């Protein structure tokens, strides 16, 4: 049969974001494939070199659209490492609340995204409705729904508003009460299981070859390789949580882990709200006014565990008021580019959308 070229995305219900997968197919079996990134390239790395350390806070959340807070955290954490700055205790706990809320919201979005390729849009609507409640909480805390610019160098921008604990707890209780329902809608649903079970395998040796991190790695390796556990940042060493793993990585087990992580995040936020001390939330990173803040010379790599894997900023300062070089390590870089090129051939067309969804490929962070 003649080979045919197909485009999956950028306009496709199973494709997340503005990237396109080029597929060369024979029947419905993929023979050759590659990702075409670049549709969202906005030159962030260059733009960051030309802005001040304090200005970049408003730029970086745009690097990853579904989960912007990890960018702020990685950037702030890296700059604090260069400055050798100790931030107030309360700020650490507020950061953890923000990060875990963001993780829940990203997991919900990605779990809802499973509704696209499998044809269960109910799932998507439920998940997006719940994500909306998180955005409401974010709006109360930071004034913005998606790009918060809340975690800044030296702590967080402002203290939590009064009574927010009640809102957060109400939301968490609500989400927890419907956890079983979520499972039934998605991964316990026989027609979804038929689509996602035993497809899109990720063996352990492939994980190490590509350099996949996050849920993809944990679902294949079976060890709790989570940066929050392995090298705790913020105050993750003072909360109790488990890292769900498995040793058989098909699309279903990855989604299953995603849902189990959701429960762990709920428990982390509850612990944070209980253990959070009172006190200041921000310190000044450097002398003088913010336009003249200088960061000492140095090279630092600042990693954060995002919902998709290890997300890091490589930061270089030459001691001036602008960063000298900032490089972004997108969490979905290995599985998005090399993974699609090497491990898509041999699978079916409809499995490709599942790879994109369950491996959490986020095109803005590949492009930057």
């Amino acid at each position: 049969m003649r080979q045919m070229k197909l485009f999956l995305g950028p306009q496709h219900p199973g494709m997340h974001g503005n990237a396109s997968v080029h597929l060369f197919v024979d029947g419905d079996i993929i023979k050759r494939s590659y990702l075409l990134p670049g549709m969202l390239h906005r030159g962030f790395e260059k733009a960051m070199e030309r802005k001040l350390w304090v200005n970049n806070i408003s730029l970086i959340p745009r690097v990853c659209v579904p989960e912007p807070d990890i960018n702020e955290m990685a950037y702030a954490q890296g700059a604090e490492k260069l400055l050798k700055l100790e931030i107030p205790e309360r700020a650490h706990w507020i950061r953890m609340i923000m990060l875990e809320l963001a993780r829940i919201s990203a997991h919900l979005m990605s779990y809802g995204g499973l509704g696209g390729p499998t044809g269960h849009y109910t799932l998507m609507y439920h998940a997006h409705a719940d994500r909306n409640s998180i955005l409401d909480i974010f709006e109360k805390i930071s004034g913005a729904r998606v790009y918060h610019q809340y975690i800044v160098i030296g702590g967080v921008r402002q203290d939590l508003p009064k009574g927010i604990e009640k809102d957060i707890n109400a939301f968490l209780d609500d989400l927890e009460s419907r956890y079983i329902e979520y499972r039934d809608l998605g991964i316990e649903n026989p027609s979804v299981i038929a689509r996602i079970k035993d497809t899109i395998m990720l063996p352990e040796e492939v994980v190490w070859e590509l350099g996949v991190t996050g849920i993809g790695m944990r679902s294949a390796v079976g060890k709790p390789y989570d940066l929050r556990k392995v090298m705790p940042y913020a105050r993750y060493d003072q909360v109790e949580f488990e890292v769900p793993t498995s040793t058989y990585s098909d699309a279903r087990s990855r989604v299953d882990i995603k849902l189990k992580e959701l429960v762990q995040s709920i428990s982390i936020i509850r612990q944070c709200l209980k253990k959070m001390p009172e006190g200041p939330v921000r310190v000044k990173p450097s002398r003088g006014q913010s336009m003249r803040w200088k960061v000492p010379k140095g090279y630092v790599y600042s990693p954060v565990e995002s919902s998709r894997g290890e997300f890091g900023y490589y930061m270089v300062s030459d001691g001036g008021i602008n960063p000298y070089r900032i490089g972004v390590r997108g969490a979905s870089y290995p599985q998005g580019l090399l993974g699609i090129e090497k491990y898509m051939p041999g699978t079916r067309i409809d499995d490709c959308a599942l790879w994109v969804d369950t491996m959490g490929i986020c095109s803005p962070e590949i492009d930057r």
Partner: protein
Amino acid sequence: MTNSMSNVEFVKALIIQHVRPHVIDIIDQHQIGFEVDQNEIHLLLLALKNAGWIQMSYLSAIDWPGENKFEVVYVLFNWDKPVYVQLRTKIDRTNPVIDSIIQIYPGAKYYERECHEFFGIAFPGNPDHHKQLILEQWDDIPPLRKDFDPKAYSDRKFPQRTYTEDYSLSNSESTKVEKRKLRKQRAESLKGGKKQ
């Protein structure tokens, strides 16, 4: 395990066994950086990979036009001994070439391709390093080099937009005066102890 510096010391001893690094900077208990010669990179990457640093997290470059050098940086991670290792090496800027590492870390393939696109560094050994990845039909020097000016590029590349009304404050003398007046008024109003 996580509270001690022993893992960082382990990496340091491992590296010193093989080569004599120019710079060693211990950033914290989970991170250490080395600056080494270009021809030592492959040896060290292999040694680190055999010692458990099986994940290559990041590969990129930094431009130092003052020294006429590019600095290529490799960031590796070991999940069992949680230490990030930065290996940095300076290469010549006028003819930037460094051998590919895809034989050691296959995941580096696309990082090298991106690095070639944004800095113009060649990676012989990587079959695709010269192909375009993100930038489409780029016709200037690689954009992350320090001597590339995005403003000049966009002025040259895109037509100047003409505006029907002039909103700019910098050119018109009258608006400047008005602006100064407004600022003065505001300062006066604040002086009286009135708080908004």
